[in-house]
């Protein structure tokens, strides 16, 4: 007797094919209905498979990223899009207040997020709360210092902003082309304890100090240019960046590193908010819960696009178990001198928008400096 399951008759084959053909659209409609599309506005790398892959699989979510370069670019993109375009928004800390002031982000419930896991410095992060209400959750941070080629400079030599004026660096000093981190570093070099809150005299001194470096400058670079010029050794010193760039290069074997100089370093932070008008609030919340969980935090610390420090203590513990070398390289090891000690020693200042001058004043000076 012929087994019709193995050798079906022509009529049965036709019936099966027709049944399958009719059922396919329903299957795909059902599958499509289950997949939630979550749009994310972020710096490059945050919606790549190494970060979101597991979450997408577990929750049947598909991220649609829109990447930006710089906080102004981000604000511009939101301003020019209808409400609800972006479900989750990653922004630098100093731009959260502006997002909130413009009404682009929703209030969050602090009970939804693991603030108790965070180091105390990050539990009530400035700008993320307004009138006791939460609007954004910090997920990672990093330091900006002196980036140097280890074949050309020792760590001791690079441990002061004064190295930017070193004769060895003439024509070899690169700038990450954004005024905020560069001028913040110059302000620290000038000895301003709050580098962005300076009076007119101090601002003039910052400008003079910056202009004195102009003969040293080899170029002004965007994200890609910064990578290639450091990797090729064309630039041996770099201002305005930190481990978020040199860490990636160091992992790939390039002789570059960053150090926090004795005059102090700057700190940037990245945090997630939920866009106002989103129809996927619950899934957006779930994503922020995932990325601030110990497992998500460890992933975030080793992001392929650029590594960062993480504010979650259990996140540090997971990182030390899964990637102890990277935890050590980034100085995120409990029980020995680590990045939290550097913050507590007052060596690190927040990067922020200028307080006493208009943002366009700083930007205009940066344009003049570039053209000088």
């Amino acid at each position: 007797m012929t087994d019709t399951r193995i050798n079906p008759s022509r009529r049965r084959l036709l019936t099966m094919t027709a049944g399958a053909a009719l059922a396919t659209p329903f299957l795909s409609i059902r599958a499509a209905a289950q997949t939630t599309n979550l749009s994310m506005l972020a710096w490059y790398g945050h919606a790549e498979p190494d970060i979101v892959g597991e979450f997408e699989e577990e929750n049947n979510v598909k991220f649609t990223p829109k990447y930006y370069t710089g906080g102004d670019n981000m604000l511009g993109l939101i301003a020019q899009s209808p409400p609800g375009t972006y479900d989750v928004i990653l922004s630098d800390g100093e731009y959260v207040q502006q997002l909130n002031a413009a009404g682009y982000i929703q209030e969050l419930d602090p009970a939804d997020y693991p603030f108790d896991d965070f180091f105390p410095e990050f539990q009530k992060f400035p700008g993320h709360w307004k009138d006791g209400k939460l609007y954004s959750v910090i997920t990672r941070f990093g330091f900006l210092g002196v980036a140097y080629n280890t074949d050309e400079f020792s760590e001791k030599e690079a441990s002061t902003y004064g190295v930017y004026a070193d004769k060895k660096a003439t024509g070899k000093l690169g700038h990450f082309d954004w005024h905020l981190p560069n001028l913040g570093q110059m302000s620290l070099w000038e000895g301003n304890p709050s580098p962005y809150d300076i009076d007119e005299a101090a601002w003039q001194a910052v400008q003079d100090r910056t202009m004195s470096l102009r003969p040293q400058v080899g170029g002004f670079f965007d994200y890609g240019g910064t990578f290639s010029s450091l990797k090729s050794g064309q630039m041996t010193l770099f201002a305005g960046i930190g481990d978020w760039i040199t860490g990636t290069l160091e992992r790939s074997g390039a002789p570059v590193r960053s150090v926090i100089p004795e005059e102090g370093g700057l700190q940037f932070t990245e945090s997630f908010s939920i866009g106002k008008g989103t129809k996927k609030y619950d899934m957006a919340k779930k994503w922020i819960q995932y990325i601030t969980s110990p497992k998500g935090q460890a992933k975030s610390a080793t992001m392929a696009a650029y590594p960062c420090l993480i504010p979650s203590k259990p996140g540090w513990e997971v990182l030390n178990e899964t990637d102890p070398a990277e935890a050590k390289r980034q100085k995120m090891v409990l029980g020995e001198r680590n990045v939290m000690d550097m913050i507590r020693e007052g060596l690190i200042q927040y990067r922020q928008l200028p307080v006493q001058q208009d943002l366009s004043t700083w930007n205009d000076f940066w344009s003049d400096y570039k053209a000088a």
Partner: protein
Amino acid sequence: MTKRPSLFSLVLALPLLVWQLAFFLFPLIFLVAISFWTVKMFQMQPDLNFGNWQRILTRGIFWDAYLHTMILAASASALTSAIAFPASYAISFKLSETAKRWLIFVLIIPFFTSYLVRVYSWQVFLTDAGIINTALGYIGLGPFAMLNNNFGTLVGMITLCLPLVILLQTFSLNFVNRDLIEAAHNLRCGRLRTVFAVIVPSARVGLVIAALFAFILSFGDFVSPLYLGGGNPPTLSIMITDITKSGQQWPRAAVVAIMMIATLMTVALGAITYAYKERGK
């Protein structure tokens, strides 16, 4: 009496007209309009504000960048034309038809690869420890600074323009009447003099149009000034990105863009007038 164009020819010309209206004239009008708008909280708001024009045109760095861009584009155009001419001459006058076809095919190949990739690959050659400086080091020369300066920018611009300029020059030289060259030789005109007194004037239109294309492409180029010139000092295209990056000042960037378009239109009009000018006038 002027002959009126037929309905058929008007219909054929219609797509071009629609294209130009949709993708040149309307965007241009919009660009002019937003140059008078204002930006508040990173949002553009319709306005009739002359502040953007005043702010850009009264700043020294705009005119510095303008002059720098003009010099770079003019240099790139002149250098590309000079480098291209011997090659175009050889292809048009010295090679067999088969070799000519192969070389024209070879000249099209660079367009298969992204310009950005080609510019990035130049970095491997031009860095202080790159291929050229390493080779020069073997004979005791260098290293020479070839990256993050005007030299690097010009290398990139010539990379962009050279294949196109050679092709345009070659097609132009192909149309030069060979009888004129023969007549020049019969009248005992030397080879070099024949080139400058007969061939170049005969191919003037094509040669000028080729140089004009090189100027236009170089004037608006963003990739070479940034990745081979290090943005040091900035050109107008870099200035546009700077202005939009900080504060989302698209209206001010529109002013720079309009100045660039006006310059290109003036240069193009001047070049075409010169190219088609009747001899002796």
